[in-house]
């Protein structure tokens, strides 16, 4: 099936989210869609999947114009979509999930589970997606759950499959497997629209690459284009993909963690007997697939979860039983993993968010009263220093783009003297230009002698920043290695393959 988009435009009031986009997806090609956050990829896919109606323009399937008013129209036309956040029912089996919404019955409303299981088996052998139809989805690893999503789309006879940032939640090995699946689908004639912002993946698997910037197509290029070229097209200017940094001037242990164990609310040990040191002037990267205890580990360091056992010592003083306020006051800067959930108050202005954990200081309050002028001055200088793109200090942070929201969080945390900086996923969902900036600031902070801890599921980011890398798997630190180690080896450690790889740099 050949999918054509002609002059597709979407306006929201005066704002043009998509400006006359032309795109052609040839049968059996993997077409990558590359663009920064807010570039308009989401809007485009929403129109393609029937969630938004275009203001102008046409969608053509095999030369015939089509109009989608709901996702079911799109599905009927052979378009399938795998969302970034899976739309699966965890307590249902694979087969039940696949038949969900189009259940076949055997009279009297009895579900025909056998037929559903047969469909799953048939599809999985045809496309080489091995999945047990009777397994419960909640028991499956994320990578396999994603396969279930793909199977679901295929069971609706999808000829064009939209994969929305499919690699964000996967281990390096799972990413390789996904790419293999994508190639197999392509061999069978299914076209794929692959949305990502990871340049490496685009080059590895794409047949053609369309770059979108500010709602317009900047160009369609072949995967032979260099990463630097692609980044430049996305951002609109030359971008340095490597972080310039001097060798670390390593100081004394600032934060030392000993035998830390954290039990999550479900009674499951999320962090198991973890010990490590963070040293002044050095970046310690904590690598690992999402959900292996990193979140709980840093929340325990910040006093947001009470650890079950173990010691967290800051300059020799145990702070493991302190709350978040004490941790912040003691000089720990914190960039939370999920910024819109934990990092800022969306309804608050930039000015207010820039002092969200500083409003009690003498700089911004006198007695019970806030010093509004000081807050405004602070906002103006931070906006300037961190190049926060906002209409002004009074704009609510939720109206900013993801990258600028993150800059607000980073600017706030960097605006006071720090002993330790804990940054989780500091550049998740952040555009290339802002990534470059945030990385530079993190290295700058390191060079001031701060002990920096970076938690990231992006190996590229871990490599770019770290002076030492600790790998977490299943709640444990399975090894602390030097950044010279090969990606494959770290990948294996992240997947839990080698528990004993202790390489001291």
């Amino acid at each position, binding site marked *: 099936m050949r999918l054509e988009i002609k002059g597709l435009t979407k306006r*929201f009031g005066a*704002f043009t989210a998509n400006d006359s986009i032309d795109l052609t997806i040839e049968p059996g090609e993997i077409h990558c869609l590359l663009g920064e956050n807010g570039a308009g990829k*989401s809007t*485009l896919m929403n129109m393609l999947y029937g969630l938004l109606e275009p203001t102008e323009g046409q969608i053509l399937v095999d030369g015939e114009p089509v109009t989608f008013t709901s996702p079911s129209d799109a599905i009927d036309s052979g378009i399938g979509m795998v969302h970034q956040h899976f739309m699966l029912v965890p307590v249902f089996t694979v087969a039940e999930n696949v038949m969900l919404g189009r259940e076949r019955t055997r009279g009297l409303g009895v579900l025909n589970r056998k037929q559903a299981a047969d469909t799953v088996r048939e599809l999985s052998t045809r496309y080489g997606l091995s999945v047990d139809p009777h397994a419960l989805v909640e028991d499956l690893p994320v990578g396999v759950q994603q396969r279930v999503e793909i199977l679901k789309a295929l069971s609706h006879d999808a000829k064009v499959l939209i994969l929305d940032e499919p690699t964000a939640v996967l281990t390096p090995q799972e990413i390789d497997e996904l790419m293999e699946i994508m190639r197999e689908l392509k061999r069978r004639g299914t076209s794929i629209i692959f949305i990502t912002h990871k340049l490496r993946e685009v080059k590895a698997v794409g047949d053609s690459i369309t770059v979108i910037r500010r709602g317009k197509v900047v160009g369609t290029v072949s995967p032979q284009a260099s990463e630097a070229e692609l980044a430049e097209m996305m951002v609109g200017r030359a971008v340095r993909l490597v972080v310039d940094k001097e060798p670390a001037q390593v100081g004394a242990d600032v934060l030392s963690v000993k035998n830390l164990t954290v039990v999550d609310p479900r009674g499951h040990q999320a962090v198991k007997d973890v010990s490590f040191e963070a040293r002044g002037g050095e970046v310690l990267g904590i690598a690992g697939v999402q959900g292996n205890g990193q979140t709980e580990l840093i929340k325990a360091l910040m006093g947001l979860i009470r650890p079950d056992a173990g010691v967290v010592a800051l300059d020799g003083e145990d702070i493991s039983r302190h709350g978040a306020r004490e941790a912040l006051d003691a000089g720990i800067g914190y960039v939370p993993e999920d910024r*819109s959930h934990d990092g800022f108050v969306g309804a608050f202005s930039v000015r207010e968010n820039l002092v*969200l*954990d500083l409003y009690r200081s003498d700089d911004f309050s006198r007695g*019970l009263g806030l010093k509004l002028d000081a807050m405004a001055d602070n906002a103006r200088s931070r906006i300037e220093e961190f190049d926060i793109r906002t*209409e002004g200090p009074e704009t609510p942070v*939720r109206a900013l783009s993801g990258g600028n929201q993150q800059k607000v969080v980073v600017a706030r945390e960097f605006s006071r003297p720090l002993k330790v900086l804990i940054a989780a996923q500091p550049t998740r969902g952040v555009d290339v230009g802002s990534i470059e900036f945030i990385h530079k600031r993190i290295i700058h902070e390191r060079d001031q002698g701060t002990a920096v801890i970076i938690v990231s599921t992006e190996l590229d980011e871990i490599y770019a920043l770290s002076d030492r890398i600790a790998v977490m798997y299943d709640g444990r630190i399975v090894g602390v290695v030097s950044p010279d180690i090969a990606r494959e080896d770290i990948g294996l450690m992240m997947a839990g393959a080698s528990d004993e790889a202790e390489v001291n740099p």
Partner: protein
Amino acid sequence: MTETIAHPPESAGPGNKPVPPAESSRGPVTWLPTLVETLAAIVIALVLGALLVALSDPDTVETLPYLFSYPADFFSAAFDAVWSSYSALVQGSVGSWNRISTTLERSAPLICAGLGVSLAFRAGLFNIGAQGQMAVGFLVAGFIGFTYDLPPGLHTLVALAGGILGGALWGGIAGFLKARTGAHEVITTIMLNYLAVSILLYALGKEAFQREGSDNRQSPPVADSATFGSVADTHLGVLLAFAAAVGVWWLLERSTIGFEMRAVGANPEASRTAGMNVAKVFTLAMVVAGALAGLAGTMQVLGDQASISPTLAGTIGFDAITVALLGRATPLGTVLAGLLFGALSVGGVAMQASAGTPKELAAVLQALIVLFVAAPALVRGLTRQRATGGGSTVMAKGWGG
């Protein structure tokens, strides 16, 4: 500000957060569409109210059978009915200083209790308990007022303080339960309302609260030394209500405590991460909210009606929720909404007396206004106001970028 009402504890994840396009309506004049919407709601309510008046007026109904032969009869009759009712409503509420003063006195407790509900809203709490907090407030204030013998002025102050503290305690219980156990404040405040009413009835059956020589559940009158003084026939509680509004505004917009309350109300997780003590903020917000409702209750007993009876609070505590909603949980809005509701209720009585229109029409108008405020999309559609912002952008986030 509107968002605070629609869903008090906002903790939108990345997937469900509306991201308005860059040049949306957000700017220094965000209150303007809100104001226009509210005024439109009031106008539509008045129009529908007029329809009701006309159709319940016997003279107008008489003209209906020959409506199509002599439409002028119908329209003049309807106009007469509506005109006389509405002018009676206006005359009765603000027609003379005496009426204005009555309106102000009726509005004052509504404003105070409304401020309590608004403040709790801003901290992410749905305070249904103003009614109970008021009851405890006037029970304490009244008891001090008729039991002790203190010099004038001081007596008022002590009774006032007692009433405020009583309300604060009652609100604080709900806040504390929320903070400690996570018990939902809607449930606990409703239960505390029942409890307050029961305590009130129990107390009024006891000797200490009984009026001598009376079998009614009514307390002795409050000593003159404890009542509010009055200026130009208006008791000073009215000034207290306006002062409370200014105080709440300062607390919310200019103080560190208000900063915490608004932060916790908008995103408790981020507030906790920023080192705020969310449990403490919840408790404090409910204490202050209860104190404001307690103040409202105190006005009832130290103002014009000087003794405690089971019906003293009327429905003020529940009307306060509507007032806060109409006022978009801002102090100024709450004051304006309180004045409007006060005027409607005072004017409604006058309307019944002079135009014969049932005073319940005032309640219908109040209900319609709130209904249309709660359904802004409907008002926009009815008035063909251009939609501000893009509702359809809601789903544009979370995909692809």
